[in-house]
Each structure stands twice: as structure tokens, then as C-alpha cells.
């Protein structure tokens, strides 16, 4: 997350905007990216072995969405940020110990299954239901944020469907930047093929933004932010409703961890000229 902001972009972010937004961020749980993962099949279908034991993080691109949301809310007075997260309650509690130190938000916790093997349609249905029930949510001001694709299922489906279920007609995916104008309209940059971005202009909320990495560095852990969040967080976790996820006819025939072990030739006795020649030949060969 080290793309530098251009000077102009930075200025517009620091101006206080007259419009406010209700930003709802959907973020799931993913295993800490450094963990070694193994699939295991249980009575409810496939999952990751020991997933409940492994250190977990907020899904990385969804976390970017949360930080962007907090940043946007800070520059648009009157805005509010909610974080909607579906996962096992105990895991959500652990997660919040870190996430709550990074941004201010109101938590909507949903006690549900963990993992990327669940059906995205079921997840979307639960999320849309929870969002519709948020007291005080102004749908005309709604920006639905989340990760474009998760680090677990990686489908890019759940957020899109949630937006569709909520009747939002403008969706953007693979977002790296959003720039607000005074009238509430905004320009969005979405990742497209070839390492480029597609720039579009949207008239305003409501809209769905599925983020990629965005521009902001990960906020520092700040226990003051955490302590302020705790007041609403613990009650939210305690009264989290349980949600079952309907498989919706999805059936896994097999899950495997293909081990690609090659027999490696380790070359220690060639000098750089000889290596370069060998490489030129290899690169050119079909």
C-alpha cells in the first residue's frame, strides 16, 4: 500500500466536504497471510484445517476499504462508518483487538461460519439483511464498501450481490481511489487489465465500492481509538445474532493442496557469462 498520492489528490482529501455519507463496510475474516494452509473435509463440507486456531486478520482488501472509509468519513463531517462482519463470535472478538485500534466504526457482528468454502449468495443474503436492519441508516447516503475479492473465497461475488439485494444501481470493483467533489459526486479509479485504471464519474450515493489495496498505508495501532471503539464493540459482540449459511446447492467434489515439487537443478559452477548465455537461450526458446 505504497502508491504515493499525487499532490492534487492529497489536497482535495484534506478539504472538508459539505456532504456526508453513511459508509457501511463489509469485511470477513481471513487467515493471517503468512500461515500455511491445508484443506480438511468435515461434516459440513470442506474447510481449512485448524482454521479456528490460526491467527486471523480482517480480509486484507476489505481492511483497505475500512481504512478508506474512515479517512473519507473524517473529511466529510457528519459521516458515519459501520463495520459489518460475519464470522464465529470468538474469532471476531480476537480480530477486533487489532482492528479496533486502527479506525473508528460501529460494529455489526454476525455470528456465523468461517471460511471461503461457504456459498457467496448465502453470505450476501445475510449481509443485506443485517444492513437493512441498521437503525438510522440513510440509504440515500449509503456507500457500501468492501473488498473486491476476499483472500478466502476470492470470488468477487458477495459484495456485488449484497449491493444488488439492497437495490444499489452503481457498482465499482477493484477500486484504488475515490475522489469526492463538493456536490457529493465522485470520481472512482478501478483496476482493469494491463495494470491500468478505469476512471469513471458517479453522481453520488448510493454506490458500491469493492476496494483493492487503495492508497492509504495501514493505520498505526492506536489504543485510544481502540478504547473509544470498545464502548459499542463489546455490546455488539454480545448481542450478535447467529446466522446459518445455506449451501444453496453448492457441492464440493474435491479439495486439494497440489504439491508442486520440481526436481531442481542447482548450478554452482558456472560463471556469470555462462549463466547469461544459458538464460538467453532459455528465454528465446519456445
Amino acid at each position, binding site marked *: *500500500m*505504497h*502508491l*504515493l498520492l*499525487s499532490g492534487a489528490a492529497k489536497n482535495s482529501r484534506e478539504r472538508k466536504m459539505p456532504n456526508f455519507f453513511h459508509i457501511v463496510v463489509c469485511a470477513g475474516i481471513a487467515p493471517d497471510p*503468512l500461515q500455511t*494452509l491445508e484443506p480438511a473435509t468435515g461434516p459440513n463440507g*470442506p474447510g481449512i484445517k485448524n482454521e479456528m486456531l490460526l491467527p486471523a486478520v480482517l480480509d486484507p482488501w476489505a481492511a483497505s476499504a475500512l481504512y478508506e472509509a474512515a479517512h473519507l468519513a473524517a473529511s466529510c463531517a457528519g459521516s458515519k462508518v459501520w463495520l459489518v462482519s460475519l464470522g464465529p463470535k470468538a474469532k471476531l472478538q480476537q480480530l477486533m483487538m487489532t482492528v479496533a485500534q486502527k479506525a473508528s466504526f460501529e460494529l455489526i457482528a454476525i455470528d456465523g461460519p468461517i471460511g*471461503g*468454502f461457504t456459498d*457467496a*449468495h448465502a453470505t450476501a443474503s445475510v449481509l443485506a439483511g443485517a444492513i437493512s436492519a441498521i437503525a438510522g441508516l440513510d440509504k440515500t447516503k449509503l456507500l457500501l464498501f468492501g473488498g473486491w475479492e476476499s*483472500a*478466502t*473465497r*476470492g*470470488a468477487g461475488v458477495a459484495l*456485488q*450481490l449484497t*449491493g*444488488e439485494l439492497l437495490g444499489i*444501481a*452503481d457498482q*465499482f*470493483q*477493484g477500486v484504488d481511489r475515490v475522489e469526492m467533489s463538493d456536490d457529493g459526486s465522485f470520481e472512482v*479509479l478501478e*483496476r*482493469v*487489465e*494491463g*495494470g*491500468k485504471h*478505469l*476512471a*469513471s464519474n458517479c453522481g*453520488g450515493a448510493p454506490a458500491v465500492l469493492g476496494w483493492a489495496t487503495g492508497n492509504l*498505508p495501514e493505520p498505526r495501532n492506536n489504543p485510544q481509538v481502540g478504547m473509544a471503539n470498545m464502548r459499542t464493540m463489546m455490546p455488539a459482540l454480545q448481542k450478535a445474532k447467529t446466522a446459518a449459511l445455506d449451501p*444453496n*446447492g*453448492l*457441492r*464440493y467434489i*474435491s*479439495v*486439494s*493442496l*497440489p504439491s508442486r*515439487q*520440481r526436481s*531442481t*537443478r542447482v*548450478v*554452482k559452477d558456472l560463471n*556469470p557469462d555462462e*549463466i*547469461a548465455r544459458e538464460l*538467453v537461450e*532459455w*528465454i528465446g526458446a519456445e
Partner: protein
Amino acid sequence: MESILVLTHCDETGAALSKGSLEAVTAAHELAARLGEALSIGIVGSKAESAAQSVASAGARVLSVSGEAFTQPRFASDAAACTAICRAAQPTLVLAPHSSRFGRVMAAVAYRLGGKIDTHIASIGGTEGIEASRWLYRQRIEAVLTRTSRPWFLLMDGGIHEPWSGEAAVPHAEQLAVELPAFRTRFVGFRSPDQGGAGTIRPEAKLLFVAGAGWTKKQPDGQIRAAEAGDLILQFLRLSAASLGSSKSLVDQGGDGNAVLPFLNHLNQVGQTGSTPRHPKGLATCCHGEEPHVVGWRFIGERRAISLDPNCGWTRGKADVVYIADAFQVMARLNALLAKSGS
């Protein structure tokens, strides 16, 4: 009894189908042939009828949605177009390329048709039913799945099937009228990344060149030669038309006040939270080859590495050939040879 529709869209020119679309047509044609079922092709784009010529040889029913509103990607218009085509074709199975354009809308379209969707599909097989295979957990776990729901939408990943190629002809394309809402989103333009490394990411390249953290660390002679490293890498990219990837540690180094390669940004990151590109060959340099990074090499064919560490991860089953050598020296000579041969 299934009926298969493949949805396609035009490329930036508006007059030809995108490469991913042509690959999806191949996949759909194969599936239709295997199942002995009919195939329809839907096309979305500003000049959809002219794009349709390239797939006339598939012998399928062609439905198109064309016009100004469909020139550039936009959720509202693309979703409406695809939905209209689906309603007209009434398919049980819908294939489409997993491009950014269709990835943006297809889940919503599936919902509007009362169907279900699975994305990033690598292949469709199965003897009795229809089995789709895809990767989860950032390409670490391969899953084969199936659904009973219909219509079932499958977004196909690119670079796996051959693009459809057949005699161009003018097909009979049914033009569909689409009722469009007032748009609140309009296309502005395409942008290249800020750093001016313009075009270091080349999905079509035959070779992926990965730069690891070792390029900007202290070398055995105690010096940091970041500028020289940058020059060598950029020169190699120019001469070989390779695509540039990076390990997470190198991309992150900018944040810790270490020397950086200014043309690298997080879009170049391969593995971990970065991308999993597809290239026939990959060359890793100054990189340890640890598992979280190598996971991003899942779809790289032949692999070679240059490292000073004879115990690095690449030497243990992750690469085909590892040269224990100083990458600065090897790359300088490699560049010289490439320049001479004019390739």
C-alpha cells in the same frame, strides 16, 4: 437438458471481441459439443455486430446489444445488456470471461435471472455432471465444485483456453433492445499508474521477471546499489518485453526508509496479497523463495532463479533451475547479450 449461452464483450476498440471473450467462446463451444447441446453467443459492445463476425464460425445463435451506451464498461449498462441477452436466450448454463468488465456485473446479472454464479473458473469437466474447478485462498487450494441450481453462471479465467479462431463471416445477429435507466455513472478515461514505470505489468508477456528484496540490500561488498539495480532491471524489461513482478518485502521496503526501486508499486506484487499472474516462464532474482511469495507463482510454467543463497527456497523443489550467482553480474551480461542479438 442444458442450453448454453456464452456472453462476450468488445475490447477497447469497440469493434472486436476481447481476447478473454474469444477464449470463453472456445470453452463454451467445447462444453456444448461435449454435452451435445445448443450454443448461443451474446455480445455486448458499441459495434457488437461487427465484432460478431469473428465468432460466426461457431455456428451458434448470436444475440447482440450494441450502441453508444455500451462502448465503455459501466455497471448499470453492462448489467442491463447481459440481463436482456439472458432473458432472450433462456440458458441453463452461462459462460463468460472473467474480465474486469464482466466481473463487475455478472453476479448481479445472475441474481436478476434467479441463478447462481461461480467465478475464476479454470476449467469445466466432469463425466456425469458439470464440474467446475477453481482456486481458493489465493491460489493455494484447488477445488472442484458443482451446482444443481439453474441458470448457473461461470466466469472463466483468461489465459487457459485458446482464443476462438475461425473464418470470419457475417452472422445473423439478433439485435436486442435494452431498456436503460438514467445513468449516474459516466466513463472518464483510462489511467496508467503514477510512478511512470508505465507498462511494467504485461499480462501477455512470455516471461515474468521477479525482483526480490536482495536487489536493494547490502551486497557482499558492503555497498547498496539500488540505482544500479533499477537500471539493470528496467533495461532487461525493455530488451526482453518481460512483465515485472516483485516480492512483498521489496514493495514494502519503501515504507521502512530503505532504498527503493521507484518504478515498483504494490500492483507489481506477486504472491501473498498480490497477484497470481500467468506466464509460460518466470525468472526470480535476489529473492528467497519463501512460500507466501511462491504461492503467487502457481501459474508460471518454467521457473528459474538467480540467488547467492544455495539454501534458498527455490533450490528445494520450487524452481527448475537455480543459479547460485550474483544477479548484478548475471543481469549485466544478460542485458549485453540481448542488446547484441537485437531481440
